């Protein structure tokens, strides 16, 4: 079992009564990109935390370069050449780039006194490796997301890392930035570094991986070469069920009934001259990268921005969506991109979360809240959307990303909107739940709801939308319809 740079054998880890990892073994060779995938809660984060010394395994062993360890501290893990790049980058925004790049190395040295000269040298060596041009004195707080990502990567290279684990490193990157990252990965691979690439973005996984390991329910269900597996099998291993879309082609909608229309809509500093039409019963796509104006457009349609010029029409009548309350009166619903801060009350039960959008409907005329009614309704939604665990009194924060997103959906569907706007509906949602959400949207659209999806996930747009507006730099760069909606066309119009 020892021909890999890094291997784990029979790792077990429990938290309370939950068996998070069951007898997990896997090995990673130098010079390969090994994709580690699995749904939320499948144990991949737990394994990473064990490898990086953050958790101690209950049993099993970790082998690095032929040496066996029962457990490691974070500093030991770094000293063995293991580096993790976290989704949130784990940088210190209050410190300078130079310090961010070298502080791990200093901590791992175990010295009590630090030397700024040594730190500077360490930092320079790190940026040289990936030819990063960056102001060493700048505070990380002042950097762009892409620069932070590169800083995090450069930091991982300081230690002549043997293994670099990228934990959902692409989650907040645009496609251009992902391409840059992949270039760096290829370079590292040639230098013999082993890379563990954690992601559940299918297209990225198949593009970059040499081998694939998939976790489900804390077990390693498959480890194989990337060429030995296709997308369907991948989804099957992840979810344990065959994923089948009920709707093969995107819904077309009724072009004779225009539910919502914008004419030359402009919002200062966000987008300008946007004219779109939303048909009844369709899922309209607003594609575009981070900063293209898609989020702002979606938010404007929900009354969260000041319109500078242009107009919005609903079924032909000019309307003003000046506030969220107004939008709700007009039966428009909005599912935000960041459900954790904008979409859910994490510390409250599902019942409260679902009821909050339409408390008036759940109350008597005198204003008393009918708790029973709300509870029954929530139970119904839990069944309809197959939210698990099936307990309406669970706190929202205890749910996985996919189930949280379903709760956000439920609370808006419960208002019975005629127009539903979703911003990044499946960000951080795993494959199984993703398909559930797609099926739901298709189901509601086919029953006559009009849906707008703003997303940078090209596959998602292609799968759901018959008509797409592609935004770039605050303007609509292209309209695509029917057969024109291809991955190629979407990428070309958004870059």
């Amino acid at each position, binding site marked *: 079992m020892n021909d890999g740079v890094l291997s784990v054998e029979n790792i077990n880890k429990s938290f309370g009564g939950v068996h998070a990892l069951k007898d997990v073994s896997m090995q990673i060779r130098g010079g390969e990109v090994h994709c580690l995938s699995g749904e939320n809660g499948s144990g991949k984060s737990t394994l990473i935390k064990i490898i990086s010394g953050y958790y101690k395994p209950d049993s099993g062993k970790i082998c690095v370069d032929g040496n066996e360890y029962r457990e490691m501290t974070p500093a030991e893990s770094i000293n063995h050449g293991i580096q993790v790049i976290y989704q949130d980058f784990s940088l*210190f925004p209050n410190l300078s780039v130079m310090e961010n790049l070298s502080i791990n190395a200093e*901590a*791992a040295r175990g010295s009590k006194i630090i030397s700024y000269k040594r730190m500077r040298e360490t930092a320079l060596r790190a940026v040289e490796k990936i030819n990063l041009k960056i102001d060493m004195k700048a505070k990380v707080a002042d950097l762009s997301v892409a620069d932070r990502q590169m800083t995090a990567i450069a930091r991982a290279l300081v230690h002549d890392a043997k293994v670099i684990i990228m934990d959902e490193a692409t989650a907040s990157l645009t496609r251009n930035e992902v391409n840059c990252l992949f270039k760096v990965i290829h370079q590292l691979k040639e230098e013999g570094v082993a890379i563990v690439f954690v992601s559940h973005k299918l297209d990225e996984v198949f593009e970059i991986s040499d081998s694939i390991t998939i976790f489900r329910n804390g077990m390693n269900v498959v480890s194989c070469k990337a060429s030995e597996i296709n997308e369907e099998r991948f989804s099957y291993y992840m979810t344990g069920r065959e994923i089948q879309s009920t709707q093969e082609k995107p819904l077309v909608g009724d072009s004779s009934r225009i539910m919502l229309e914008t004419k030359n809509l402009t919002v200062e500093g966000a987008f300008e001259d946007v004219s779109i039409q939303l048909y009844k019963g369709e899922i309209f796509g607003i594609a575009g990268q981070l900063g293209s104006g898609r*989020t702002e457009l979606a938010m404007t349609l929900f009354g969260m921005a000041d319109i500078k010029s242009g107009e919005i029409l609903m079924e032909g009548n000019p309307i003003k969506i000046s506030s969220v309350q107004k939008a709700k009166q007009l039966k428009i619903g909005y599912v935000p991109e960041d459900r954790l801060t904008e979409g859910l009350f994490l510390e409250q039960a599902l019942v409260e979360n679902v009821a909050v959008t339409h408390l008036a409907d759940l109350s008597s005329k005198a204003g008393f809240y009918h708790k029973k009614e709300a509870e029954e309704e929530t139970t119904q939604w839990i069944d309809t959307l197959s939210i698990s665990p099936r307990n309406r009194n669970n706190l929202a924060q205890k749910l996985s990303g996919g189930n949280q997103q379903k709760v956000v959906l439920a609370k808006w569907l419960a208002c019975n909107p005629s127009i539903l706007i979703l911003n990044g509906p499946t960000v951080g949602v795993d494959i199984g739940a993703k398909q559930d959400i797609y099926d739901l949207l298709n189901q509601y659209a086919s029953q006559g709801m009009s849906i707008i999806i703003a997303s940078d996930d090209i596959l998602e747009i292609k799968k759901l939308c018959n008509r797409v507006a592609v935004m770039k730099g605050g303007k609509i760069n292209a309209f695509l319809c029917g057969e024109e909606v291809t991955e190629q066309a979407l990428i070309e119009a958004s870059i």
Partner: protein
Amino acid sequence: MMPIMKKILNRTETYVILTALLFGIAVEAVSGQFFSNTGMINLARAVMVYLVFGITEMLSLTCAGPDVSYPALASLSAFITASWFGSASYQGSIIVPFLVCMAIGALGGMINGYIMARFDFPSLIVTLGTSSVFSGIMYGPLKASNTILHGTMAEFGSINMIAVTNPENGLKANLPAQFLIVTVLYLIVFFLLRYTMFGRGLYAIGSDKAAAERSGFKTGRIIFLAYTLGGTIAAIGGFMYTCNVGAISPSDLMGGEMIIIAACTLGGIRPGAGIGGLFNVIIGVVLLIMIQNNLLMLGIPLYFQDVFTGAIILLGTIVAINSQRSRNGIKKNG
């Protein structure tokens, strides 16, 4: 030239110093005594003990949040020390009571530090609790009350380092020798913060505790050390204050935490964010004490002073935090 100007204008510190200068000029214009030798010495004397407590507060603010227990801890340590060594019968070296006082402070700091490191509670809650415990011990079993100091401790408090006389009006002012202690403390803590893993770790923890742990910092140990150090320094402040006043007055320092927290925030320290350092403590404390001590001079009635001070604290904090927010860079995606 331009980028440097921009950088300077972007800093909270610039505005704090400017405000202090403007205020000083205003007082000078009214009284003619602010920028005199006695005026400066009096200011140094007035901020001395606050500067010491400022270090304690800064350590806590940097890595976690406000520490409201230091007045009680400083009082307790100083009271115990004074009740052992503060009578005329003790004529030995001042070093002994000084070290004893530090040790008691360190012990109290360890309690704070242990709870903070072990349980990860908000610092406000923890120190609110320990504050009650410290003052409870002092007033309860130890039955603290006001007593005049005698012997070595009283003598120590009256040693002056610099004595000046204003040539114009003949007024005198003295700077106690204890100011040296403050200087040495600042040098030591400056070194710790800037050149040791402990100091950098403190900033890293303030920024992102999980990330600091991932980086290989022993976060628990650093937090424990920070509070132990903070407690020790608080005790030094209490010791200095007691010697200075020449009496044990257990309730004097109580409630002082609000002024220090305000001074630190005003000076540019962001609670629990790993932003700010000793320089921020100095300018914040100097500005606030300057304002407090000179409002009467500017014709602001006594009963109105708290309102005025409060308003300045609020305004300063709002301005500082707003400018921080706008250039924080952590913007929403989209």
